[in-house]
């Protein structure tokens, strides 16, 4: 994808370093996923332990909207990345801002969703810990989204047409990998909870 032809030895080393960094990103995603996988298995083991446990509630419809929002944000993320490949900085900036805005909207929607849950009696401090698990999932995911928004802001403010193009595209590539992952992760969490409700 990256349009650079390495010609000297140091260029080659630089490229292999970038490749290694991108690989590190993927490994990091595996690590993050393991945290959620552990909670998922914890949830299953816990809920199976007694008939009193389990979600025993319907998830708020707000989650459907937040899912839509984050999927759309992923589309814009991809557009922003495409724009960075084409060195179209105006478009890249615009799409990035839209992505960040949608990310913030997602955070707000999640907040509304757990407020809704809390008012309907599904509170965090709960003797049925299956219900507490919903909050753990949502909060931990929100924390990651927050981190990702900071990553996106960093990518936004570091756009500099005077600097080497490859730095910009590489930053965008990493940011978009992270963002798409969090999108997929949320869909996983949502489907997991839906299947257990």
């Amino acid at each position, binding site marked *: 994808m990256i349009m650079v032809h390495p010609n000297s030895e140091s260029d080659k080393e630089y490229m292999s370093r970038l490749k*290694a*960094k991108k690989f*590190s990103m993927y490994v990091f995603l595996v*690590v993050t996923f393991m*945290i959620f996988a552990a909670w998922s298995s*914890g949830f299953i083991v816990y809920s199976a332990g007694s008939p009193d446990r389990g979600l025993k509630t319907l998830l708020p419809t707000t989650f459907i909207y937040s899912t839509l929002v984050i999927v759309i944000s992923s589309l814009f993320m991809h557009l922003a990345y495409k724009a960075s490949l084409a060195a179209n900085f105006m478009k890249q900036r615009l799409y990035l801002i839209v992505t960040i805005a949608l990310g913030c909207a997602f955070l707000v929607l999640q907040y509304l969703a757990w407020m809704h849950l809390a008012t309907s009696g599904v509170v965090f*401090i709960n003797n049925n*810990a299956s219900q*507490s698990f919903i909050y753990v999932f949502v909060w931990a995911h929100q924390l990651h989204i927050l981190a990702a928004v900071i990553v996106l802001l960093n990518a936004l403010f570091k756009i500099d047409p005077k600097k080497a193009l490859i730095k910009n595209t590489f930053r965008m590539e990493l940011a978009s990998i992270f963002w798409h992952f969090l999108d997929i992760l949320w869909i996983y969490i949502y489907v997991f909870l839906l299947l257990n409700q």
Partner: protein
Amino acid sequence: MAFFAMFLSILFRIQLAWPDTDFPILEAFLGKWAEGGRIKPDFFLSLVTIHGTIMVFFVLTAGLSGTFSNLLIPLQLGARDMASPFMNMLSYWFFFTACIVMISSFFVESGPASAGWTIYPPLSALPQAIPGSGTGMTLWLVSMTLFIASQVVGGINYISTVLNMRTKGMSLWRMPLTIWALFLTAIVGLLSFPVLVSAVVLLVFDRGMGTSFYLSDIYIAGQALPNEGGSPILFQHLFWFLGHPEVYIVLMPALGLTSEVIATNARKPIFGYHAMVYSLVGITVLSFIVWGHHMFVTGMNPFLGGVFMITTLIIAVPSAVKTFNYLATLWRGNLRFTPAMLFAIGLVSFFITGGLTGIFLGNSALDISLHDTYFVVAHFHLVMGSASICGMLCGVYHWFPKMFGRMMDDKLGYLHFWFTFVGAYLVFFPMHFMGIDGVPRRYYSFTSFPFMQEWLSVNVFVTWAAIIAGLGQVAFLFNFFYSIFFGKKATQNPWQANTLEWTTPVEHLHGNWPGEIPTVYRWPYDYSKPGHDTDFIPQTVPFSATMSSNLPHDFDGDTTAEKIQRDWDKEHGIERSEYSH
């Protein structure tokens, strides 16, 4: 940290040996934790807990995979540096902060965490339960979170470096076993440490916010707690999903280091290189499906217990493969007993002794009576404690010239080895018998139970052995620091080893190699190859330079190379069989 934790263990051994004697000096240092010169029960538990935590995580995890990965991965693979030097530094400072936080728990009034290194709830979740579950436990959790962050950042870096930064010619099957071990260790760490994070997050919610993930039906001082419906067993599942792989995180780097040292100092190729790698892979995979053997007595479904028992016993297979390969490598080798080699052999010895008792403990029926006795203490101190420490010390002695450009003193090394080796056996071997008699671990006082009183004399013996073995470590400490400044200057390749790190100059320079990075042409274990004039051929020597010793299988079926070799052989009147064409 190792010396700190060892000192803690000697403190609690003193209590175990002489429960009725006063040691006024303890009061001078520990104040109210040792009123009247006797260690208090609460503080005893803290000592056991922090000793375990520091040894398992801060010494054997960080000291083995942390230090040796960062040293050896770039040097043995021919990389200028780690994939991300920044992450490397981040990992170091996270670790450093974690150490400070852990030790600082000795300076809070309620004392350090004391729920055992496994921090099982509810004990660890309820600050009002014991003094150690107060601020000390909070500091433990903070410290461990930082530590995990350090391990994860480091681990990502190791994997990325191994897979992306190898020099030309360094295919995976030409990597030294050290790198294989460190690489697989990093994978195990990355898949298991996040699970501990998950467990700890839930524990923090239980401690601080009143949730009931792990808490149910608890009365403290006659008062019922509001928490209902939690499952403490859930924590054990999550904990041991990390906890058991952690054992292999500790052990595998040690196995990797010794593989290298044994092959180098036996002047023989490692026996069964591929089998060694596959057994490491086998251990890696199996380590994730055996955690239940720590929980046989938690009321687990016997069928599930049976499954865990089978997976546990299967681990004996790759472990035995490794042991036999070590022995076969040593067999009829030109052994050079450097201190590093002695420690490597020490590892093999401890691995066998400790591994055998693992077969006892892995059987769920036997485990019912042996669970939480000194038998377990003896088992894991030999197999992962002593064996891994030996691997670590072996690594320090062997790579010291690489690290500091000077040699360590051999005589002090021998002294250190014998004190450590004999000391460890004298300390841990008697514990097997105590365990079979049913003496439980972590008990403060042996005088309160009649059946345990007869073991007091053994305790005195063990404590003296521990003190003497501990004093033996002073030889190492002195040797280490003295040699950094005044040791004999090292040559570039003091052990005549084949791996790439010995092709770098003795003086450290940025980027490891002054000119181009060397290219690799062969596997790292060409020791004592028949037909060659020296007994080692470094990885950087091409086959064209060793025409007299090349063997048909060296060419991996490359017909052109084989033809050249055959022509050369004919010219020099040498006959070799088994060419593929």
